[in-house]
């Protein structure tokens, strides 16, 4: 595992603005998720809602290393990735509210955020189902010689699905430029990794495909960023795919319905103590990058932005029922 440390901040050649922006993104995601949970409790949001709380460092660190031309595709726990990739909280929150102003016009909901203009190919709800899509996106990049890399996010649980294996093999055989980023948060829904995966070390699953791999502390945003840079560079140089395992933890239940009977309160508390956002803020203060007051201001701004997003979502109109048959086919043609 790549070790983390404030001392590396300089080596990463990050300006203060960049560092603070990483923090800003994480707190923005946190506020977004907290508010989503609240609105869910109030009945404004329904269905599945998978929060990213506790895992923000992985998403923000990973996306921060990507170029604009790179492609992002992820599973249903997608809010953090959408925001990190630049989706506006307004459109994201409105989607949760099932509004016409939502990022996908209320069609997809929480699990299907996307923004093709940002090469964000969306969140997918069939576990591991999007991994073969990533291989295809990688093929498109290679075929057209675009130099872009695909970053595909999924969980520890998804690595047990055949779809992952078929996609990983294809990617390796064809040396496709894809970073498979496994968020190992120790559980797939309520099932601990050790009960369902023959190996606890996800990166080991890359060996069957002769694929480069590494593990990183997913609670350290800079470590993730750095590991991701290595992975991206590997892929961009034509060395084929790369599997990066990020060790992380979700602080909330799997979705809003989770009884959390499968893990102890103590365990959750232990991980919560090392909140990736708090850790990063403290480090930046310690290293003199920014002050407590600056962070307080960022927090306040994030809160305000999300509150406005909630308001926006609430004020937005629902989709027009006359559009009920749109988007079924891309080409015109009779629909029965």
């Amino acid at each position, binding site marked *: 595992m790549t070790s983390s440390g404030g001392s590396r901040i300089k080596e990463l050649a990050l300006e203060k603005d960049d560092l603070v922006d990483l923090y800003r993104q994480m707190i923005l995601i946190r506020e977004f998720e907290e508010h989503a949970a609240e609105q869910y409790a109030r009945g404004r949001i329904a269905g599945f809602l998978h929060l990213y709380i506790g895992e923000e460092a992985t998403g923000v660190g990973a996306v921060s290393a990507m170029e604009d031309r790179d492609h992002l595709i992820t599973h249903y726990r997608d809010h953090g990735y959408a925001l990190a990739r630049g989706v506006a909280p307004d459109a994201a929150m409105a989607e949760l509210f099932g509004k016409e102003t939502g990022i996908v016009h209320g069609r997809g909901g929480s699990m299907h955020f996307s923004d093709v203009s940002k090469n964000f190919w969306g969140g997918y709800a069939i576990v591991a189902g999007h991994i073969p899509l990533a291989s295809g996106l990688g093929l498109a990049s290679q075929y057209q010689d675009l130099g872009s890399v695909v970053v595909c996010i999924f969980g520890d649980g998804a690595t047990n699905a055949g779809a992952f294996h078929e996609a990983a093999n294809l990617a390796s055989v064809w040396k496709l430029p894809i970073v498979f980023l496994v968020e190992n948060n120790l559980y797939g829904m309520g*099932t601990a990794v050790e009960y369902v995966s023959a190996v606890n070390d996800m990166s080991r699953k890359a060996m069957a495909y002769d694929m480069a791999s590494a593990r990183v502390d997913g609670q350290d945003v800079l470590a993730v960023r750095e590991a991701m840079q290595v992975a991206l560079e590997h892929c961009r140089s034509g060395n084929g795919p790369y599997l990066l395992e990020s060790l992380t933890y979700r602080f909330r239940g799997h979705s809003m319905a989770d009884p959390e009977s499968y893990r102890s309160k103590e365990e959750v508390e232990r991980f919560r103590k090392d909140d990736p956002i708090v850790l990063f803020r403290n480090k930046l203060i310690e290293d003199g990058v920014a002050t407590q007051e600056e962070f307080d201001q960022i927090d306040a701004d994030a809160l305000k932005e999300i509150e406005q997003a909630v308001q926006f979502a609430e004020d937005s109109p629902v989709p027009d029922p006359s559009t*009920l048959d749109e988007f079924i086919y891309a080409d015109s043609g009779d629909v029965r």
Partner: protein
Amino acid sequence: MARELSYRDALREALHEEMDRDERVFLMGEDIGAYGGSYVVTNGFLEEYGRKRVRDTPISELGIVGAAVGAAMGGLRPIIELMTINFSLLAIDQIVNHAAKLHYMFAGTITAPVVIRTASGWGQLGPTHSQTFEGWYAHVPGLRVVMPATPRDAKGFLKTAARGNDPVVFIEHSLLYRNRGEVEEPDAGDLLLPLEGAEVRREGTDVTLVSWSRGYYLALGAAEELAKEGISAEVIDMRVLRPLDIDTVVESVKKTNHLVTVEESWRTLGVGSEIAAAVQELAFDYLDAPIARVGSRETPVPYAKNLERLIFPDRDKVVEAVKGVLARNLVSVS
């Protein structure tokens, strides 16, 4: 003798009874153990029966079904859970090309008594999580496909399935788990309902409404609504979709001369299409009007609540369809 049970508790009771009766019965599926089951059907079973008999699995639908079929070949009695019928697509090769074929292709020497529990349902779950595919399974020889609407059927079918020798696709409904209904007390003896036969649950004379699973309640609600207007609807719960008991429907139509099918899947090639096709064939001279089919709108299911409501059938749409059928009759009579 009978008490009220929820659909969920009826299933739980069936599982308990069968597991207590036969050591070879075991459960397998994603998050059925430590998590308690995504629809809380198996909550507490891990604690009660232990890891050997309540097996949390990896997210490997194909592997789970295949392993269950293999275990069944080897003498065990797996009852497995695929969280929702949407995910069963990943396992459908094992269900159709393996479970449904084994007995036949090995000329009766191999049996695959596996019970595949899964759930249909919707509720702002988005395009990939709101589907129902009973029509697909009902197309396949070798499978038994049940879709209970009532707690009693849920229990009685599950117990029979657990003892039978054929693969059973057992489709529950996420919006029915809390429904309550009468179920015999366990000490009244094993509730073993044959995996066949539709049931006339409400008698009527003007029109026959046919449905199953949650659709049955829409039909029932419509019948009650129609009664207020003096229209007498007979309501049939199909219960089992393969083998399909078309005779019960035909008998009813011979009396009512009108038929409306109700289902939550897409109309095109939904089970209603088979029922309509078979009934027009078997009761042609008794039909006073075309058979109407109520199904879901032919589109993926959107997340937005206001749109989603418009996709699925509801009581009013059934009432409207019935009136359409009867109105046509009036027109042709006039």
